[in-house]
């Protein structure tokens, strides 16, 4: 485990942001931290970053109780991210890299590599004010990863990115994962969860309401529903019931009477109609998200 969060409680004057949150985040994975606005994601991330301390509970980082020295092994891209507007890009990155514990020479050589890699060599002496938003985002990303952290925390990393930059960012994230970086990825954009995450945890109203590996979670939410295409008249039978039907498209969703009763369902179907297609309905994370959040309200 890169991160083990144990019974963390965080209270503010008028509300509880985290009410006994426990989470295990495995090494080398992209871990999606999901949840609606105000669920407590940012509070949790701030505790891991040691920006604030928990009222109760503790966080274990790579086998050790979280300690100030660990900030140098964590990279953090906050949702609300900015740069010093009146500073040159190079100076700014040098400053941020050195704050993360890199020596001057090390910071310089690594930054040069990144500048070449992202094809932004001529930005070093540019003032941040003169950069476009996309350019600023690249700069911020470099600042997050330049010290080669063990754990990378990305809070809504894609917000505000255009498709080209978003793609670049996605490739970089996957590349970092390949090189062994563990990534904690907070978002409510479900398509990026489907695309990138290995495991997820869903937080709602200060509690973890769902956690597990992506496929395993998905399986948990399967409802024995199948999408069928056919011609003819479809009605309920003892093997299935029709959940919804689109007569014009000749398609419907049916729910099996028994789990694993696909064969019975198919034989019942072919008695009624000409069957063209029979496919399991796999729940999207969007559906899971909405369902769980509604249930735990």
């Amino acid at each position, binding site marked *: 485990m890169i991160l083990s969060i144990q019974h963390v409680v965080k209270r503010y004057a008028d509300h509880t942001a985290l009410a006994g949150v426990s989470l295990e985040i495995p090494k080398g994975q992209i871990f999606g931290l999901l949840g609606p606005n105000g669920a407590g994601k940012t509070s949790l991330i701030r505790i891991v970053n040691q920006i604030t301390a928990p009222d109760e509970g503790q966080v274990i980082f790579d086998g050790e109780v979280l300690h100030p020295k660990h900030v140098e092994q964590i990279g953090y891209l906050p949702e609300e991210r900015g740069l*010093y507007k009146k500073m040159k890009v190079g100076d700014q990155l040098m400053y941020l890299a050195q704050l993360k514990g890199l020596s001057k020479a090390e910071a310089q050589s690594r930054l040069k590599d990144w500048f070449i890699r992202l094809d932004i060599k001529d930005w070093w002496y540019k003032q941040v004010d003169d950069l476009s938003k996309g350019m600023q985002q690249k700069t911020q990303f470099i600042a997050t990863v330049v010290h080669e952290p063990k754990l990378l925390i990305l809070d809504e990393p894609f917000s505000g990115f255009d498709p080209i930059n978003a793609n670049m960012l996605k490739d970089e994230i996957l590349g970092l994962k390949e090189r062994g970086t563990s990534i904690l990825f907070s978002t409510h954009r479900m398509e990026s969860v489907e695309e990138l995450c290995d495991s997820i945890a869903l937080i709602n109203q200060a509690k973890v309401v769902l956690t597990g590996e992506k496929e395993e979670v998905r399986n948990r939410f399967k409802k024995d529903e199948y999408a069928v295409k056919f011609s003819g008249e479809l009605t309920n039978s003892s093997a299935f019931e029709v959940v919804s039907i689109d007569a014009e498209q000749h398609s419907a969703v049916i729910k099996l009477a028994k789990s694993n009763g696909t064969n019975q369902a198919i034989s019942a179907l072919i008695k009624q109609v000409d069957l063209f297609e029979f496919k399991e309905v796999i729940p999207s994370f969007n559906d899971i998200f909405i369902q769980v959040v509604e249930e735990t309200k």
Partner: protein
Amino acid sequence: MNKILLVIQREYLTRVQKKSFWIASLLGPILITAIYAIPIWLAMQDKEVKRIEILDESGLFQAKDLVDKEVEFKLVNKPAAELKASFSKEGFVAFVHLPKNIVRDSKELKIYSEKNLSLPLKSSIERVIEKKVRATLMQKAGIASEVYEKTQVEITSETISVSSTGDETSSSSGGAMILAGVMGMLLYITLLLYGSQVMAGVIEEKSSRIIEVIISSIKPYQLMLGKILGVGMVGLTQFLLWIVLTIGLTQVASTFYGSSPIQQRVEQVKKADPEVAKTMEASPMDEVTKVIESTNIPLVLGGFLFYFLFGYLLYSSLFAAIGSAVESTAEAQQFTFIVMLPIILAFIMAQFTMQDPDSTMAFWASMIPFTSPINMMVRLPYGVPMWELATSMILLVLGFLGCSWISARIYRVGILMYGKKITVKEMAKWLFYKG
């Protein structure tokens, strides 16, 4: 520790590299020099020697009686009506009509001028005439002119301070007052100036949203401390530049002054009238030398640095706390008033402290940490008992520690607060938040 140094370095370099820093560094000395040079320059313009025609019907006056450093008299003998019409055309500022029996009718003197006569010029003319009339009256009363000259003594005093051990130093009350005023003023300006720079820096970090990235690398109090120290060093650098440049500029200005016509004229008058010369020699330079001799320069300078440093640290930490709680400078105004109030109060109190540096009010003003930087600096040139100075310094350090504790606690919560109108009550609550 290393990281605080990084913050200090950034805060220092980004400010020192700004154009505005150099403009302020240059403008300051130019302004200070101008404050001294412009009156001199104006005086030079004004004191180009005034020429005055004098019609003496009494026949009392001779050219040697009419000597003044600022006025040149010309005795003429023409009808008064004609002179009245012609004096300004001939380049005279005024025409003085002395009546026949000026000795008896001393109020009958008439001065005609085209424009309103300036008060100093009027009294210069009156002084010269008065002197001669007095001498004439003395003579008539049987007092020899030498006797009269001898009675013209002028009393000046030398003030000497005696320490308890009996050491005597020639003191200068006027000089001490000037020194006290200058230092009080300087502290007042710098506390406000650099305090609000710290606040602006905090607001910049918060509103540009870089803050969260930074505090995921270092502790908020480290960032706050680094910022305060960095800006403080900018302040010291600016002081240094101001001092060096002001000295340089005043040197240049004084060379001009030295070779000016007015200075030459002063020399002439000195030669012509040794008595005038005597009074004129009590020049400002003597006063300055006296101040330097009578004040303990290392103590005053050390005191200034100490009170600047800790006064600045105390106030700028409060300014930082305010900056952290708001999102824009406009929003900060309601809170800055709370912090500025004690500074302004201290400055007002300093005016009274300057009048009476040993009063009860002056004592307390120089003890309470919020008012002590300005007030103790004002008292210091007059001489302050060591125990008072030590107590005041210790209290200031304690005050700073207390304020920075409060500020750090407000700061760490405030920098992460967005989209919320903050009240003082709310800030008080933040003090007790955990971690």
